[in-house]
């Protein structure tokens, strides 16, 4: 099946992820300002102040893929952090207690930390702990909860205003802390690049609507890296252009990412970072993931003439910050648009935000689309409670029931 692998994604880690950590470490050595950033923080602001961002979440997934996350989690647990906390957080905190033999030399030390309350409590709390450990300031973007689950166009305007005023105040504090002015032109350029990357990313997703689909989850969970971390860069745009044209070619030729596509699945939440072979195993059963909710929450149309407002609209409507209706609409839409016949809802042991409400999602998706969902009890980073046999048996039984 190897000839079906996408050319653009070959060597992704070596070509993009590894150099990213190398350059971040270099920046750290050169005394440039490095910030720890939690996802759902509008990183475009940091880039415009010349701050080098690094993502602890990305580092945790990297540690899981390299199968070192569990020993790191255990280090954090020994310091008193509960085993029930987010495994991303435990893994990264653990890495701070052990300087030796960490992948990519560990995550660069921060001069400052930035987080938003947009996604979950864990971002705020985890970063607060790290801020105390490093004795570096944490800048918090305090975001209202989108209790109606409104989309970016239908948001309560007062929430948008509040987000904007918070972001303005925060940008001021960051400028003061860093002694650098926010470069308005750079912000606009970044937003334009961000938009272009978003457009391409959505075109890439559109390609996956085809039967057979030219790309699966394994590729998507790598490729989403730019959308998640550094959307507003030339590198992101260049990469997505290449990927997009490769997929368009595949679609033209009618070549799917797997040979016999029997089941088309929507995958919610995170993958098992420690076992990305899992998606290959799915493929041996004739199942391919055509859409991940994770791939559909980071794109956003940003208006460079209203940078703060468009960032507000993008992040306030992020599924993680919303009442369950938004997640339900998103998944139901994916099922229809991508002609999926199954939905996998993996839980995440330390994640309240994604775990609670899965029963409602399951029930509503069936009502709206007629498609049944499978809830899988797993964790993205900590494999200690992962019962491979049980999970696979459940999955195989589920697939047999799909139409």
């Amino acid at each position, binding site marked *: 099946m190897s000839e079906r692998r996408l050319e653009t994604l070959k060597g992704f880690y070596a070509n993009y992820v590894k150099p990213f950590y190398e350059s971040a470490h270099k920046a750290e050595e050169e005394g440039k300002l490095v910030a720890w950033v939690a996802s759902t923080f509008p990183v475009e602001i940091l880039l415009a102040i010349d701050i080098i961002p690094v993502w602890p979440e990305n580092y945790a997934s990297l540690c899981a893929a390299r199968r070192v996350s569990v020993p790191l989690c255990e280090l954090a647990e020994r*310091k*008193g*952090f*509960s085993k*029930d*906390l*987010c495994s991303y*957080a435990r893994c990264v905190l653990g890495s701070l207690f052990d300087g030796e033999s960490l992948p990519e030399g560990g995550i660069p030390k921060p001069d400052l930390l930035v987080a938003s*309350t947009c996604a*979950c*409590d*864990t971002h*705020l*709390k*985890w970063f*607060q*702990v790290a801020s*105390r450990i490093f004795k570096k300031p*944490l800048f*918090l973007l*305090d975001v*209202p*909860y989108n*209790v109606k689950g409104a989309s970016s166009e239908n948001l309560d305007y*007062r*929430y948008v205003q*509040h987000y904007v*005023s*918070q972001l303005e*105040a925060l940008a001021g504090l960051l400028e003061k802390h860093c002694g650098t002015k926010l470069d308005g032109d750079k912000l606009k350029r970044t937003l334009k690049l961000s938009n272009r990357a978003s457009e391409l990313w959505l075109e890439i997703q559109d390609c996956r609507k085809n039967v057979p689909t030219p790309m699966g989850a394994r590729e998507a969970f790598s490729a989403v890296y730019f959308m998640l971390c550094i959307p507003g860069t030339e590198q992101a745009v260049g990469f997505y252009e290449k990927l997009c044209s490769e997929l368009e070619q595949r679609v033209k030729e009618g070549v799917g990412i797997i040979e016999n596509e029997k089941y088309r699945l929507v995958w919610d939440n995170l993958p098992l970072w420690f076992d990305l072979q899992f998606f290959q195993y799915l493929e041996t059963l004739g199942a391919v993931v055509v859409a991940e909710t994770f791939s559909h929450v980071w794109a956003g149309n940003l208006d460079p003439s209203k940078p703060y407002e468009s960032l507000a609209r993008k992040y306030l409507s992020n599924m993680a910050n919303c*009442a*369950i209706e938004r997640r339900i609409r998103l998944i139901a839409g994916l099922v229809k648009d991508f002609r999926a016949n199954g939905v996998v809802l993996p*839980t995440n*042991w*330390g994640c*309240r*935000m994604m*775990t*609670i*409400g*899965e*029963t*409602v999602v399951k029930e509503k998706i069936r009502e709206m689309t007629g498609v049944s969902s499978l809830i899988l*009890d797993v964790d993205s980073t900590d494999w200690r409670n992962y019962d491979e046999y049980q999970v696979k048996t459940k999955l195989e039984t589920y697939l047999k029931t799909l139409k």
Partner: protein
Amino acid sequence: MELLELLKTLISADNKFVKEWKRRNKPVLGYVCSYTPEEIIYAGGILPVRVLGSLEPSRLADVYLPVNVCSFAKSCFNRALKGEYSLLDGYVVSNSCDNQNKIYDLWRHHTTIHKTYFINTPHSTTENALRFFCEELGRFKEWLMKSFEIEISEQNLKNAIKVFNENRRLLKQVYELRKQNPPLVSGSEALEIVLSSMMIPKNEHNKLLKALLDEIEGRGNPPKEGMRLLVSGSVMGDSELLRLIESVGGSVVADDLCTGSRYFWNLVRKGREPMMAIAERYLHKVPCPFMYSSEERFRHVREMAKLFGVEGVIIFCLKFCDVHSFDAPLLAEELKEEGLPVLCLEWEYSLSGVAQLRTRIEAFIEMLEG
């Protein structure tokens, strides 16, 4: 002490005051978080009643929720499913934590309480956050007036503030009685007194508290002397755990609980426009750990430990409560640096793990006794 017994019986969403209130066709509003601005509710002639779950197993809620969820939030939802909150005319949630926010989705989908409101409480205390919170409370007030067809005047708000502040002062007087050794009010009694204040009209509670304070000096059965402990944690809607501590030689003389000192420690300031004064009081109160930052709470714990002559601290972390669990090792470290012995315990909002807790608490107290 008959009054203490009476107060204990009031810790229930269908106590005699609630029933009497309903009999007069007045609405009752359930709330779950100590950041709910009760003054505004009370000012509208609505009775705010704290939703406290119970320590019984949450069998119905288990159908909808997996294991890795806060057992307190689950228990509240379970009681709602069982119809045990049928006296409530509505339910208010505050933007406090992922557990509550996401279970609110389930309340909306699966319970019969249709009047629900979500207060978008900020997680920081900046000027910006305060302004937003004050506006948000304005929207909450509008919702109350429309949903329950009532008026809330400035004078009503001022009266409510007065009654609530008086209640807070009286509760502080009760806490004062715990500074002596042995304390005149035990930890479990103090918790029951505070819990009862959340369940009945505050003006009625003030009367009961005054009577209690008058009588208690001469009480015939004062609490026993024991190892002076502070208990830190989130919600404790039942005094069972504190009774357990007291049964093995502990004397809980102070607390950092959202159903204890964090509930009433701060007053609404006088001389400001009432809605702003209320917003300020709630946003700047001794914080729960979902707020940024936790330093103020840690300071509160250290200060209480000093004021109440505390000899050891027990931190109770509800399993799957992320915000407390991240704080626990930090708080423990700070207290140890001050020379205070600390015991960190994880527990579920139920009685199932009590035997294990007892063993560990007993060992901790023995260690303190040297």
